[in-house]
């Protein structure tokens, strides 16, 4: 899909639409590429064409469901659930699932977390056993694993993201005793050392220089003549008081009196001094990678998204302090600085995704740490009709 089309459709959720199941037939025939969806009809129009389309679609769906699901003995996976540690030990490892799931201990035995157990059992990929040697029923898996997870919302978010293809791992901050901010501080120091080595420090210096730079041109006499001018005219205390302004930039910089938040643009700029450790539920629960990524369990790299799970009924919107803690617990996005001004304002420098769950229905929000104070709309001059020429002339003049 082209980038533009993607942007335009970004708010359309495919799963909201009614499926035309005939596309399953096309899969059967060609085997490879996904077919296009048909046009949606809104009401019966009484024609034979519509009736036969519907019948075909229904038949295709049944045919797809009728397909026999086979387990080859080569891919047979079984695990044993150990309630006292809340994990399942994989006894027979097979198939592609363990590229992205489970964690091996020092002796090479793979252990699965409860959400992973449910996911694998649910999709028929694994058999789960009690330690006593009896097979666990599906109901038993659900009841023990959900209990081990604490609540059902996290599980619902995990299995939703897994089912649509994402690679999902528990974030380290899943553990409420883990000090996220301390960890982030260590990472930052490392990043700073790396940056110094790469001599990228000049960028940081340049920015702090620009922040202190004020291009306001003041003529001394206009300072004296202020009483004759604006203030005298209004006989009033006003914010702007000079009789003459040489540029709109100087006006705007004098108007700038309200302190505002400036999100860090680089890891090295992060200084979360008085920020509290994020508290549940506003802690990152899952690290998520896009389906296509070359994910390695041993060195997963930076996740594409970080998911916080919230219950719609029990939790309200995070307060400012909670949001600040949450942003402090994630690293600065490396791609933001190369984006356009408008995109920087929309996507922000640090992002977290909030999964709000109400009785199984998951609503996702992207929260972005943005800084309007850093983006001066007046700096870019209004677009001129003959842009390249006039701009050249102007720069010569000034």
């Amino acid at each position: 899909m082209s980038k533009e089309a993607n942007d335009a459709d970004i708010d359309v959720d495919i799963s909201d639409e009614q499926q035309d199941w005939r596309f399953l037939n096309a899969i059967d025939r060609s085997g490879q590429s996904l077919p296009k969806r048909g046009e949606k009809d809104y009401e019966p129009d009484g024609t034979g064409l519509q009736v036969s389309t519907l019948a075909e679609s229904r038949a295709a769906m049944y045919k797809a469901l009728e397909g026999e699901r086979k387990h080859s003995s080569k891919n047979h996976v079984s695990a044993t659930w150990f309630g006292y540690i809340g994990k399942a030990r994989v006894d027979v490892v097979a198939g592609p699932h363990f590229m992205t799931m489970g964690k091996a201990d020092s002796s090479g035995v793979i252990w699965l977390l409860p959400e992973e157990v449910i996911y694998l059992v649910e999709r028929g990929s694994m058999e789960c056993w009690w330690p006593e040697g009896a097979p666990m029923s599906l109901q038993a898996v659900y009841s023990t694993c959900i209990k081990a997870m604490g609540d059902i919302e996290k599980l619902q978010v995990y299995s939703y993201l897994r089912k649509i293809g994402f690679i999902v791992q528990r974030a380290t901050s899943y553990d409420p005793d883990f000090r996220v901010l301390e960890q982030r501080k260590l990472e930052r120091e490392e990043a700073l050392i790396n940056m110094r080595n790469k001599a990228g420090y000049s960028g940081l210096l340049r920015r702090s220089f620009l922040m202190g730079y004020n291009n306001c041109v003041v003529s001394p006499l206009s300072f004296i003549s202020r009483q004759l001018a604006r203030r005298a005219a209004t006989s009033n205390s006003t914010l702007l008081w000079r009789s003459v302004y040489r540029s709109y930039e100087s006006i705007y910089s004098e108007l700038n009196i309200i302190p505002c938040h400036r999100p860090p643009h680089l890891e090295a700029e992060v200084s979360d001094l008085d920020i509290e450790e994020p508290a549940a539920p506003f802690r990152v629960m899952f690290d998520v990678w896009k389906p296509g990524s070359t994910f390695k369990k041993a060195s997963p790299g930076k996740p594409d998204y970080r998911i916080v799970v919230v219950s719609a009924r029990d939790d309200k919107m995070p307060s400012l302090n909670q949001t600040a803690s949450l942003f402090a617990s994630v690293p600065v996005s490396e791609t933001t600085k190369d984006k356009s001004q408008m995109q920087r304002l929309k996507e922000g420098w640090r992002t977290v995704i909030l999964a709000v769950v109400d009785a199984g229905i998951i609503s996702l929000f992207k929260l972005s740490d943005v800084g309007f104070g850093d983006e001066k709309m007046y700096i870019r001059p209004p677009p001129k009709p003959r842009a390249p020429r006039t701009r050249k002339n102007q720069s010569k003049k000034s």
Partner: protein
Amino acid sequence: MKKSLNQLYGSPLPLVVRPLPPIIPHNPLSWIFWLWEYWFPEPEYNLYDGILHALVLPSETTFYVRIDNGSDINSLWSMGFFGKGTLSRSEPSWYTRTARRLGLQGGEQMTSEEVTAARREERKKFKMMRAQAEAEELARRKKLDEMKEVWAGQDSDSVSTLVDEESKLTSTGVASEAGDSKHELTRTLEESQPAQAAAVLVESSASPEVSGNHATVIRFEDQSIIDSNNKLIQQEYLQLMPQEAFFLSYGLGVLRITDHVTGKPLTSEELLTRFVSANPRFLSQYAVYHHYRSLGWCVRSGVKFGSELLLYKRGPPFSHAEFCIRILTSPGDEQHDWWWNTSIGRVVGGVKKGLVFCYVQGNDTENTAKILDASEGYSIKDILGSYQIREVVYRRWIATRNRD
């Protein structure tokens, strides 16, 4: 079109800027000229007049500021898009529209309301064409059904033609043809320019010379708004939000506001006293307004989109608003539930704007008390500087669209 917009709305604020003259190194005269301009600038400023009106109700008092002078109205609108015309959608255009209707002088310009009306007309046409295309398609399908019935018992030859026809319909026919015609229609709609259509509309019906073929109806009540020189009398004024009025008078110092009862000009402190007494949240609301104005945004009320403010890149004639600002005071009213959040998010997302929660930290109660208790002096700049602003953007995230 764009060029004339730049000419019409060149200044982002109602202030005159005097750039220093260029220095030409080989021309000493230009040095002297530069020095003269640097040391002895001619003071240049605009001063507009506004009147503060109070709407006194038993439960509360609301203040609003109105601008009556025609050239002041034009300047405040065209330089920064301040205020709203009381008889128009936003830009005060009643005079133009009415002058055209009555065939008087001053109705030559095209107004934004007319551009919108022309666009609505285009859309209506498009929808009619689409309905017609759909009806034709339905008729075709029904005819096919009839043919099927008639030919049901006939020879295999005609049946095979029928099968051909149907497969055409089902495989490529319906999907692509119907789709194509829809795309075609959409494209026509996108390409047609409502502004041009409106211009044609204006040209044909508006200018007094041409209006011969378009009879002007002057109603009885119209006579009272036409003066003896056959000119239309302005009935519209510009109404400013309290934030806009305070920004223009205190922030820029270009608006002199007079109390309509006493007829005396008000100082910034007097004006602020009235605004904070009518609205205990005025200070934090103003701080947010001032913040975005000082960054170069054109800021207008966002009441139509369930939010406090709208941010335009340059102004309404140039583009749609980019952001909706919802102000949350922290600590205080920041912790809303998710139902509240999605109701705003869906409205704002539906009109393709960004939703910004703007958290303001500051003590309205204490600052308001300081202002109302005039015994102690205070600096407005210091009070505004005690507010802290932080923005968080919320956007609906659709997992299936972010898999790449």
